[in-house]
């Protein structure tokens, strides 16, 4: 199968600058700077059908097009490498193998949007990825591919690496801008949207690592080529799926968007580990409603996954076998969100600990029938929180209620967790 982002990978080490260039690296940048207008680059990204890989799936080129080119003052590009969503580790795998596609993609994005100064916001704990990026930035600058007057085109741009100190909410794009400015990372109200008023009040684009790293290949090979690498005519491009949990081979794979869930698990993941059978999975990271064996054939692409009642999210697939208690799994997930709540708004600050409390009651065998109704109400009510963290937290609860109501009820009726044998 053709690989896009992983095509330069070397086993056990990062690709070098020389190897990346020898294999066609930076030809997209040369092509764009010598023969394409900024609008042309943006149009190619629009035509490619590329949708953001950070979780929300917003079309990348369209997001760029919202940035007004006429406002005075600087514009900004931020690459989001916060990646703290449980079950998600694709951006780390990519950057440890190859930091150059991201650097090249960022220069192309800066060129399209007219940005002089861009940032990579990277989480704590990704020290190897951050070191790779610093090295790649230094090499690209020395080769005239980054910095002042790139390739003699008159276009200049820089990339700064900002290493965070660990907090999931920093990945939310408006919280990220506060974090980068050195403020407490509470989200900001939208509107105004970042494209109009973002970092230091200037127009700002926030894109995920994987989104930006794909740009060179769209420019080098054309939008039609990129789109056609997907598994279905509706999908566009390849996707990094990072798999974890009870499969034989939990790893990060680059696969065509739209490949059915079951083919991913039985194919590259090697199926379920011995003695395990598939019970459920989080299809796209910790904030997505569960899929069950009924969803085995769902094409893993944004719209089909949404139509089947969940979200493609980050592409982090967490697989659970028949011995997993789904109430306990959901409790673990909501505890994460309750702890990571930034505390800014009441529904999330007060509501998530209450949901944790209800799930603890049910899991310990002290739940009652009315708790099911209260949980269901909270799935609705937490949509009114200030940012997307709280609705995300309720994704697994929603899935639990829709697919595993019998399992909840068994806890309540028997007064104990059926998966703990005492």
């Amino acid at each position, binding site marked *: 199968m053709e690989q896009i982002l992983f095509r330069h990978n070397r086993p056990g080490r990062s690709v070098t600058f020389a190897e990346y260039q020898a294999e066609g690296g930076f030809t997209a940048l040369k092509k764009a700077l010598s023969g394409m207008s900024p609008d042309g680059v943006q149009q190619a990204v629009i035509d490619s059908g590329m949708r953001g890989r950070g979780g929300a799936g917003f079309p990348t080129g369209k997001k760029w097009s919202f940035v007004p080119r006429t406002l005075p003052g600087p514009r900004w590009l931020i690459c989001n490498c916060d990646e703290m*969503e449980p079950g998600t580790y694709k951006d780390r795998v990519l950057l440890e193998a190859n930091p150059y596609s991201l650097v090249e993609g960022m220069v192309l994005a800066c060129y399209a949007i007219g940005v002089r100064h861009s940032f990579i916001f990277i989480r704590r704990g990704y020290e190897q990825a951050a070191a790779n990026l610093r090295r790649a930035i230094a090499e690209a600058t020395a080769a005239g591919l980054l910095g002042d007057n790139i390739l003699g085109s008159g276009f200049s741009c820089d990339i700064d690496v900002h290493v965070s100190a660990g907090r*999931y909410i920093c990945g939310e794009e408006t919280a990220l801008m506060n974090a*980068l*400015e050195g403020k*407490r990372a509470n989200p900001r109200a939208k509107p105004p949207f970042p494209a109009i008023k973002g970092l230091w009040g200037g127009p700002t684009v926030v894109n995920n690592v994987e989104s930006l790293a794909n740009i060179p290949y769209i420019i080098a090979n054309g939008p039609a080529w990129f789109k056609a690498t997907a598994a279905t005519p509706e999908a566009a491009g390849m996707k990094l799926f990072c798999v974890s949990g009870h499969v034989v081979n*939990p790893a990060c794979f680059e696969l065509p968007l739209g490949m059915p869930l079951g083919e991913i698990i039985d194919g590259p993941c090697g199926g379920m580990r011995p003695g395990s059978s598939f019970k459920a999975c989080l299809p796209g990271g910790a904030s997505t409603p569960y899929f069950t064996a009924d969803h085995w054939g769902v094409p893993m692409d944004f719209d089909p996954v949404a139509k089947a009642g969940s979200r493609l999210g980050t592409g982090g697939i967490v697989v*659970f076998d028949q011995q*997993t208690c789904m109430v306990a799994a959901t409790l*673990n997930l909501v505890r994460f969100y309750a702890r990571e709540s930034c505390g800014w708004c009441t529904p999330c600050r007060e509501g998530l600990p209450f949901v944790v409390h209800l799930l603890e009651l049910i899991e310990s065998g002290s739940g009652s029938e009315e708790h099911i109704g209260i949980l269901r109400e909270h799935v609705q009510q937490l949509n009114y929180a200030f940012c997307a963290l709280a609705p995300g937290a309720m994704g697994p609860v929603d899935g639990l209620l829709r697919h595993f109501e019998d399992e909840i009820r068994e806890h309540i009726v028997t007064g104990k967790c059926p998966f703990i044998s005492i």
Partner: protein
Amino acid sequence: MEQKKMIPDLLKNELQSRIASAITNREAAVDVMKALQAHYGWLTDEAVVEAAALLGLSPLQVEELATFYEMIYRRPVGRHVIHVCDSISCWAMGGETLLSHLSGLLDIKPGETTPDGLFTLLPCCCLGNCGEAPTMMIGDTICGRVSVDTAAALIEQHRNR
């Protein structure tokens, strides 16, 4: 009373040039806190005051940042901080067992530091190593597929470091 000067001039100069290269002073705040934490072992009260002076902020403004982040410590920690991931993929692969095992090995509860000041044990959010669950981080080193045996070996390796 004159405040005792705590950070060496070399570090101070480094931080001043980091701040000078930032777009605004505040942008460098996390870097400054991390550097001071590396110097003192944790972000001491003196460090908060020093960071504030360097950044042109009030100590309270530094404090509200410091208490926000998981990896900035406003209380003393041991020489080696052990973070054990307690998020979903690690949970599914036995992360709770790993945490309680480490707790037994070190004879401390999660959140505590060993009496000899060598190890602090902290549960933490996803470390981005979910495919190799269960995962822990000792200092800056990520360790995946940690078993009961490898956990004990890792601790022994770090005892004399």
